[in-house]
């Protein structure tokens, strides 16, 4: 009975704390037309502390969306254009000799910010990617002999486009796994595109207002952690992840030879965290299977290794996840 009261209280708390979600969404909608899924995914990443990899052809407002989110939160924002000649020091910072002080001083790189937009991450060589991904994981950077904690909220949003693969350095599987979500952005609809034209023909392009502070995000993150997740939901998440590892056990024999490796425990953790954040966005104090299903594609699509057979048969990780969701029993 007490637990019931807790849920009620939590629900009320979430109703109160999550009101900013609508405000941020509204601000973003002023600038971004459509892309509801992209905005929701950005919020899920923001609230669960997970980094996001955005994939889409050029011109789909990937950069604009991230910039708008940073603007509406009044957070520090840095955009780093990844190029083949980028060095880890360009990102992290380095020690430079100060003639005035006659000593080496630390020159912090652009990563010391709240929101990092790593534009076209796959254009930089592996050592730069590796340095960024390490910072993403550890949330700290060591320059010289000193370790610096990165300020919270710290969120990396990397973009890559699926075309023009020449001269790129595709992210290794182990590093892609560090991104909580991989969001694939699709083209807008006809009506949305018409609206985009109208918006861009205005004398002044709309700008998002600052409606939140970074501290509010940190507070919201604490509330997200309190969102109740029942054991049944946890089992559902485990079933989904296990189905990627052992499809045969879930009557998905046709994918046995298609999957070279399945989701890691990090996938299960990310799925649970993302589902909680999604429930929060939907202003609920508890997770329901819909929340898991809503974030499953973004959490899992980059964590399933496809075999040559799958590629030969044009089977994508999305196909496999969709089939898993249609097969695994919902609690």
């Amino acid at each position, binding site marked *: 009975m007490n637990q019931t009261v807790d849920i009620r209280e939590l629900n009320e708390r979430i109703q109160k704390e999550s009101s900013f979600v609508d405000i941020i969404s509204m601000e973003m909608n002023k600038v971004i037309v459509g892309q509801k899924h992209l905005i929701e995914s950005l919020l899920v990443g923001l609230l669960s502390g997970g980094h996001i990899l955005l994939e889409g052809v050029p011109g789909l407002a990937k950069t604009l969306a991230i910039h708008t989110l940073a603007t509406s939160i009044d957070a520090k924002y840095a955009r780093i254009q990844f190029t083949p000649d980028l060095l880890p020091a360009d990102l992290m910072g380095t020690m430079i000799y100060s003639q005035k002080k006659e000593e080496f001083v630390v020159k912090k790189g652009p990563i010391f910010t709240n929101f990092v937009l790593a534009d076209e991450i796959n254009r930089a060589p592996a050592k730069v990617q590796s340095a960024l991904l390490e910072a993403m994981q550890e949330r700290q950077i060591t320059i010289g002999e000193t370790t610096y904690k990165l300020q919270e909220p710290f969120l990396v949003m990397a973009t890559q486009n699926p075309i023009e693969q020449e001269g790129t350095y595709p992210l290794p599987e182990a590093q892609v796994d560090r991104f909580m979500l991989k969001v694939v952005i699709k083209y807008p609809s006809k009506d949305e595109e018409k609206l985009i034209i109208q918006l861009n023909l205005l004398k002044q392009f709309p700008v998002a207002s600052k409606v939140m502070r970074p501290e509010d995000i940190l507070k919201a993150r604490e509330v997200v952690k309190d969102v109740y997740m029942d054991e049944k939901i946890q089992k559902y998440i485990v079933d989904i992840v296990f189905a990627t590892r052992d499809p045969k056990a879930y009557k998905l024999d046709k994918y046995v030879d298609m999957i070279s490796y399945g989701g890691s425990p990090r996938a299960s953790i990310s799925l649970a965290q993302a589902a909680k954040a999604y429930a929060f966005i939907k202003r609920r104090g508890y997770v*329901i299977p819909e929340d898991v299903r809503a974030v499953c594609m973004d959490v899992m699509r980059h964590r399933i290794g496809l075999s040559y057979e799958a590629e030969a048969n044009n089977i994508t990780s999305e196909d496999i996840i969709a089939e898993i969701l249609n097969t695994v029993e919902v609690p």
Partner: protein
Amino acid sequence: MKQIISYTVLLILLSGSIHSLKAQQVTVKASIDSTHILIGDQLKLLLEIEKPKDLDIQFPQVPDSFSSNIEVVDRSKIDTSKLEDKKREKLSQRLFITSFDSGMHQIPPFYFKLKDGTRLDSAATRALAFQVHGMKIDTTKGPVDIKMPYSASVTLKEVTPYILGIILIAAIIFFIFYYIRWKKKNVPLFTKPEKPAEPAHIIALRELDRIKNQKLWQQEKLKQYYSEVADTIRTYIENRFDIPAMEFTSAETIGTFKQNKNLIDENSLDQLQHILSLADLVKFAKYTPLPDDNNLTLMNAYFFVNQTKKEELKVPGKPAEEETENEVVAEKISE
């Protein structure tokens, strides 16, 4: 004197075609099925002996050719057959003979050797004759070309091995094909014909009865109670409407019914929505419903099943099934 004459006549008669031993105890016979054949054609020569069962005999050893121009083409095994007199038996052998010389040919008598204890004897068949006719040549037409051999018509005996071979190959191909299909689909190679499935509503009502009798919510096992009620309804939907409700979330199931409005009426949809949303709250949000809600959920489940069940053909004269069932449900709930 008369008696002597009649014995003499009888002896003369018996010493002709039928040679008998031990006064009518052994009878031997040789016969052919035709007396006129075309050159190269075959004749069937039948050798028979009727004898007491305890008498040892030896069939004549017919060589492959005899009488210099008669050839044995084939011969059967010695066949034994029963006679009316159970102490006697009949042995016979068929020989196929031919001749490639035209003219009259004699088949000499064949000798059966008999052994009665220590006494040896023999019985001979009658000699036979047959005429072999050559081809008539029309000399008036002058010399003609040599005719090529005629192709003999194919017999069943010749074709049978090929037919069996084809059947065997077809069977192997079928089994390979069936095995590959089985491997791909991972279904049993041979399956028993399935029993006709029970109607979905019968299974669902039985499950609801079981849940009701278990008195789960009365024992404060609310989560189990709502999970079982919801799962029963979801299984019923799956079986009744072919909607994969067990793999769908509540919203997806409701959404499917909303999209296909002809499946259930508005009232049933409300009942379903009530059952599933309340069950979700109990299952995932630790919600504790009122005792009335617990009863109402089960009642809604009964009504939902009864209102949406597939109607069976009613037998004329039988009372309306729905009415009686609704009464039963009402009784069950009031209990």
